[in-house]
């Protein structure tokens, strides 16, 4: 990995972790624009069968077992950011590999 890529990764990840792990704790707890609109229009009760994912490790943005405080939120934010990063690096790597085997580029022989 080039130095520029490593720096981007470190700076971007630090920003994400700071925002998700710390700043988000001070976020407004008021309903968001859609929730407020649905409440104002008296349309906030589900009308169809819906599916909510089971709270396996997190109760919304709080790590289970840590209550609702700063650390529960920080753990959720950091874990979510890292999970998204890992998924996207994985997907990006898979797409690239597929591209390398399809294309007849000069460096395609190097592709394992």
């Amino acid at each position: 990995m080039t130095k520029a890529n490593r720096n981007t990764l470190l700076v971007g990840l630090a920003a994400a972790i700071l925002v998700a792990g710390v700043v988000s704790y001070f976020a407004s707890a008021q309903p968001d624009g859609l929730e407020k609109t649905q409440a104002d229009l008296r349309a906030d009760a589900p009308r169809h069968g819906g599916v909510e994912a089971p709270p396996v490790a997190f109760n919304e943005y709080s790590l289970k077992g840590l209550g609702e405080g700063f650390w529960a939120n920080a753990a959720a934010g950091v874990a979510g950011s890292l999970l998204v990063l890992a998924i996207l690096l994985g997907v990006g790597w898979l797409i690239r590999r597929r591209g390398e085997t399809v294309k007849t580029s000069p460096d395609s022989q190097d592709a394992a």
Partner: protein
Amino acid sequence: MHIGPGFLSPAVWASTAAVSGAALAASLAVANRRLDDRRVVLMGVMGAFVFAAQMVNFPVLPGTSGHLGGGFLLGILLGAPLAIVVMASILVVQALVFQDGGVEALGANVLVMGVIPALVGAAVRRLWRRRAGVLADIATFLGGLAAVLIGATAVILLLRLSAALPGSVSLWQAIGVMDLVHLLIGAVEGAASVAVVRFVLKTRPEAVFAGAGSRMEATSA
């Protein structure tokens, strides 16, 4: 703006899932022409950052908050296909891990917070490719505002089609209430997009506009 579980009718969530699924498949199909190491890293880092930014609700009107969408910003920095891949990944994690948004509403949420803003962002991307400057700044601010308002209006249409709004409320009333709040949220989205695009273009211009597919770094990872 995540649509929660139980608000969309089966016909609406199934058809929006089909549209978003097709958009995602098409995005993945064309993505390999756009990827080099720099773009994979930028895509991953921007995804983590947008996930983080979405956790920060800021107050707007009394009793209301908003948060960034990010799909528009990603459309500018990555182009529509990669932006759609990133937003779909974020929304899947939010729905499955953090119970943010209904699982059956994933397709609709990807449409209004991923596909639509990514396409608006991709249109503004052309301006930045030509020249950074006041014109691109203004277009980015207005584009971010428009992307949020189009998405907000689409949510109301989907709720109406799902019979999830009371019959006593007209469609225009509902759109008015929704878009008034999102006018302010959209202004923040636009302003934040200007700041982030400027920063990323200043620090990693070659990762944003990497001569689409012609340059593959010979020494990978």
